């Protein structure tokens, strides 16, 4: 069976969530791999959620916020931006490809942009393959491995 990536998306209520909604209303086809969590602002996305998601088995994370200058809360998207920058560095040290975390500015009217990003990101994660982060830390004891053999 072909690998179906599991992608968690954090979308801000005002721009990207509405934009993704618009894509749906406009019957624009986008991959079902993306599982959306709505937050009021992309600034609400705590970096621990992303690590938690990877731990729980997500293969990629997409964060969507308003375009710079368009944030409903003035500057929440800038805070998301700087957190994502720092988190990328941390992910590298964990051995997670930074391409698995993506931040996109999609406005409420950009249903087509959402479709494009969702399709492209899903294809990218698909080519990167499964992350299986949790399993990496659950390496079985040599003895158990022997038994398994």
């Amino acid at each position, binding site marked *: 069976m072909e690998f179906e990536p*599991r992608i*968690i998306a954090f979308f801000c209520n*005002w*721009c990207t969530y*509405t934009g993704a909604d618009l894509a749906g209303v406009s019957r624009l086809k986008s991959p079902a791999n993306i*599982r959306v*969590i709505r*937050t*009021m*602002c992309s*600034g*609400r*996305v*705590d*970096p*621990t*959620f992303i690590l*938690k*998601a990877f731990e*729980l*088995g*997500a293969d990629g994370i997409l964060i969507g916020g*308003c375009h710079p*200058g*368009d*944030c*409903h*809360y*003035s*500057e*929440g998207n800038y*805070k998301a931006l700087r*957190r994502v920058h720092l988190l990328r560095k941390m992910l590298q040290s964990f051995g997670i490809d930074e391409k698995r975390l993506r931040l996109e500015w999609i*406005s*409420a*009217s*950009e249903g087509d942009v959402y479709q494009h990003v969702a399709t492209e990101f899903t294809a990218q994660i698909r080519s990167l393959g499964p992350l299986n982060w949790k399993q990496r830390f659950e390496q079985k004891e040599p003895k158990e491995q022997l038994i398994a053999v």
Partner: protein
Amino acid sequence: MITLKIDGIEVQVPEETTVLKAAEKVGVWIPTMCHNDLFEPYAVCRLCSVEVVRGKRSRVVTACNYPVSEGIEVLTDSENIRWIRKFLMELILSRWPNVKVVKEMAEKLNVGKPRYESLEKDEAEDACILCGQCVNVCREVVQANVIGFSYRGIKREVVLPLGEQSDKCIVCGACALVCPTGHIKMVIEDYKGKKPEFTLGPKTSIYVPTMQGIPRVPVIDAESCIHFKTGGCEVCAKVCEPHAVNYDMKDEIVEIDVGQILLSTGYDIFDASKMTQFGYGRLNDVYSSLEFEMMLSSMGPTSGKVLTKDGKEPRSIGIVHCVGSRDTNHHPYCSRVCCMYALKFAHLVCDRTDAEIYQFYIDMRAFGKGYEEFYVRILDEGVKVIRGKVAEVSEVTSSGEYKNQLIIRCEDTLAGKILEVPVDMVILCNAIEPRKDIDAVRRLFSISKSPDGFFLERHPKLDPTSTMSDGIYIAGCAQGPKDIPDTVAQASSAAARILSYISKGEVEIDPVRAWIDDKYCAGCRICNNLCPYTAIDFIEEKKISQINDVLCKGCGTCVAACPASAITGKGFSDAQIVAELEGLLAI
């Protein structure tokens, strides 16, 4: 007050009044040719000569600049004066025999063929009669001092400095306006690289923008007003009796505290010169819809007459629909109002001229109440409608009365033929587009725009007047192209919404808020600076931060940043989001 007699009629006038003005008051006519109320009397034509009798002495003076004095008697029609006038008039007529004002004056004064032959006879109909009105208006009213007299006696003439067009000339046209013979003409030509603009704007610098406007007061266009160029003129202030003209008014910024805002900032029209094939701005007699609307206005530059730039009535007019709208190169959307106003144009042109009218349309969208009926009526009026997008408007030069004619090239998609339609005037139905500064405005109010560039409503069907920002409403073409009935409906709905909140007296706020658990807050104050609404205060006594519930909008930035996880976002707590994650990743 001074009492005097003019031709036996007693009159009382204030001091400093001239004899001419006093005579005007009692209805005694004194001929003048160089006098104009705009500037000080010049007294060069001498035609206003009158006889002033004081006691036993009498003398001949010019009425225009002779001040009245107590007890004088003025004779304007004595034997002596009639002789002087005749003599002066003959001199003037002998020099400029064909000028209309001179001939008219000569007729009034019963002067026939002059007895003299002038050495400098000028037989032109628009000859300069050296009245000096242009010189005076330029010096005293406009204060540009560009025109002056040169040479003396019979060689006297009106000249520009060194005989050249001067930089000091602001091209106001005042000289041409006062010139009684038409010797001075306003010629539109390229002058020092400046291309003159053809506009159908207001005729004067002080004008009433719209007759239906409230308050209906005139405004001054500082860019074209003579006063703002030279400091002179002020004619409008002089004639305004309540002294309402104020040149020192400045833009001022007024701050008003409000709870709700309705944005109805309107639209711009598409700049048709971007579509070079239509020749807008390049060819004469290609007008934008708003320019033509101005032409149709009875207050407009042509007083509502439909005229080409040559001042002739057009024999045929082409109206081009969808200029910039329904066009993938410009705006993909339909501007909605153009079909109907194009039909209205056709109706009005039919009413005012005998011109043949051609409508070039893609689809005739007569969708509103009574609109289709109007369309049918226009068809009955004989307007020719051609289904096809215009490819090109070009100019051809031909002999005859109409030298330049426009040719509209288009495919008639119903007949399947390529047409070339000759017209005298082309009207373009420009697309409605968002205001140029719409991005700055929407960021100010933190609202979004839709893909077409207009303000985005909260919901396209269920909530078309409010926006994602509480208390901000939108109406009219700021939200999208729409006609007047639709705008009125939307604006009324927005106003009703606003009023409902005002009458309620209180505002409901979203329950999505952040709160700080005192137990866990370490008072690090990281959240204090993060909050875009300054809703988080640090309480010195308790050494903890606290959130103001009314100011907080619930964005959750502080929740994500709190190192002690002391802040919880109601509805979006860490536990809730993690639970969502677990649920989503369970399969």
